[in-house]
């Protein structure tokens, strides 16, 4: 089926070349980092995870979000999702590959990565995270491919594949739960040490993932002559709405616990994120604009996707609404959550994190690689669709 990715119009190739440019920049930047060390990032002994791990965390959510198509279709027999579950599965594949790349670029000794398998350590959540991420990747690749092949031959998919389809549903939940457990089981990091982290991650994932799929579907409608169908889009927007509101509701609970209990440890990170944290006469607030960006984009997005006119009458406004939700939750999880957890440091100092330009290029490179993979996969999927129609 890969041959379908090799035929495309001018815009297809221009888009791939555009991504290819960023991939090349990313590769060069990564090689620099590989030979010099992670000193070419903004991380320090105090804020020891940065942009890379934050992107990883966010993208695990995007990958898990694909299940919001698979579940209604296979469990509730919601037929309208039939045409687009493949978009969800392929998005999961691309996101998971990005996750793995972000982990690899973050490692100080990437050549030793296999030590996680050579010395399996079940009491480390990172070990389990690796297991479920690989499991989910393999499941999605298998299900996506088998079902697409069957579709191409216009036969029903083999029965055995349904076992794996159903298996992929708990896996989707597990990848983001285990990723939350990387954080919420660490003593002394009050912001992360909260049982609501896992549910919050899931809620944000089930909004951000489908939001990206809606944006993709709207773009594909224009550029690739592929219509996901009004009913499917509408259902997805409903899912996004509930999930997005749930995420923000969970966050507001964190605010209540922190500020009503008035325990400093429970407030510091929230204070730092949203208002700036005062320490020895200096106010540290470099993430404040991002977090208010999150709040504003969320409000804009949720208004656009719930107002009847923008939601149903205008693809453009709907697309902007979904893109706003996606970006808002990226700011929340792909920037704020991970960085703020490190502050204040265990010895109550404030060390702010500013990404290095090299680190930003590597990050862009990984995102570009992910979108490159995603474009190719979608091209194949749509090629098959068009072939059937013809």
């Amino acid at each position, binding site marked *: 089926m890969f041959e379908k990715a090799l035929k495309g119009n001018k815009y297809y190739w221009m888009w791939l070349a555009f991504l290819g440019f960023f991939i090349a920049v990313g590769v060069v930047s990564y090689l620099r980092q590989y030979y010099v060390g*992670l000193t070419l*990032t903004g991380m320090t*002994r*105090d804020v020891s995870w940065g942009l890379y791990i934050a992107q990883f965390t966010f993208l695990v959510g995007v990958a898990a979000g694909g299940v919001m198509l698979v579940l209604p279709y296979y469990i509730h027999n919601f037929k309208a999702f039939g045409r687009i579950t493949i978009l969800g599965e392929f998005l999961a594949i691309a996101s998971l590959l990005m996750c793995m790349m972000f982990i690899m670029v973050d*490692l*100080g000794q990437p050549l030793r990565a296999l030590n996680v398998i050579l010395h399996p350590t079940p009491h480390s959540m990172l070990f389990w995270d690796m297991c479920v991420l690989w499991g989910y990747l393999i499941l999605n690749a298998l299900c996506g491919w088998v079902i697409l092949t069957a579709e191409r031959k216009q036969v029903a998919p083999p029965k055995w594949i349904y076992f794996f389809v159903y298996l992929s549903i708990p896996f989707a939940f597990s990848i983001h739960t285990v990723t939350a457990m990387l954080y919420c089981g660490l003593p002394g990091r009050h912001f992360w040490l909260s049982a609501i982290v896992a549910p919050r991650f899931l809620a944000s994932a089930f909004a951000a993932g489908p939001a990206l799929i809606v944006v993709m579907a709207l773009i594909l409608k224009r550029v690739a002559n592929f219509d996901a169908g009004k009913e499917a889009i509408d259902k997805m927007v409903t899912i996004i709405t509930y999930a997005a509101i749930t995420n923000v509701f969970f966050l507001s609970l964190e605010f209540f616990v922190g500020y009503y209990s008035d325990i400093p440890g429970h407030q510091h990170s929230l204070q730092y994120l949203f208002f700036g944290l005062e320490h020895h006469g200096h106010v540290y607030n470099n993430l404040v604009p991002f977090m208010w960006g999150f709040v504003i984009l969320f409000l804009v997005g949720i208004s656009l996707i719930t107002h009847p006119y923008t939601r149903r009458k205008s693809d453009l406004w709907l697309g902007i609404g979904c893109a706003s939700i996606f970006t808002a939750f990226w700011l929340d999880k792909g920037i704020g959550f991970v960085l703020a957890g490190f502050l204040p440091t*265990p010895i109550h100092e404030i060390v702010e994190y500013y990404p290095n330009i090299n680190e930003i290029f590597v990050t862009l490179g990984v995102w570009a690689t992910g979108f490159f993979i995603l474009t190719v996969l979608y091209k194949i999927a749509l090629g098959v669709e068009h072939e059937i129609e013809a």
Partner: protein
Amino acid sequence: MDTNRRNFLKVAGISTLAGLGGTTIVNRLIAGVDEAHAAAAAGAEMEQKAAETIRYGLVIDIKKFQQDPSLGEKAVNACHQIHNVPKFPEKRDEIKWIWMTHFENAFAESPNLYQDEANQTHLLPILCNHCDNPPCVRVCPTKATYRYEDGIVGMDYHRCIGCRFCMAACPYGSRSFNWRDPRPFIENINRDYPARTRGVVEKCNFCVERVQAGLQPACVEAVGDSKALVFGNLKDPNSEIRQILKEKQTIQRNPSLGTIPSVFYIV
């Protein structure tokens, strides 16, 4: 490095530079595979015994560091010199095993608006607590951070993948990462202790290489007879450290987290 090999090294009388893998160690391993098996069995027994009878700990007398501020510098320099801890020009690359800080930082979880003057102005040393229940060991996905039976929390620099999960997990900020190649920044290299490569984590190792050879930790030695630092076996009721703990009131850093630190402070 697996437990057997580690035990073998111990029994063979080579100081337990676990995972540092100098060529002599490797050669002896190759030469002595058979003995290794026999020795490993004996070693496992010894470890068992160590677990029951040994747990190393350290008492830090804050008053003594206040009375003689030069002690702190001595302890820090001795440790960093002997362990090849680099000095970087940029603070962001910083690596430290033991360092001087304020009371309010070391004991941040017990703030006091009306702190006594001495503790406001003077510094005290902090280092890895060699927790009995160490979160860093719990989270490490490769067992590159592990706990010896005698309570010391050690590092295998050759196994560490540099994921820095342990740094997020340590609630005391005891760990540092080699953001760049440290070798050019080591002032006087000590050939008896390996320098690290970039991309791995490191921290105070309670001088495991010295302790298992019957010596005192370098920082303890450096403060001499001042008794500002006293190292010893917490499981031996007759040890000096236990005598001190019996007589003086001590506190620990953030004990409410359940990590059970092995480092005690006399206020």
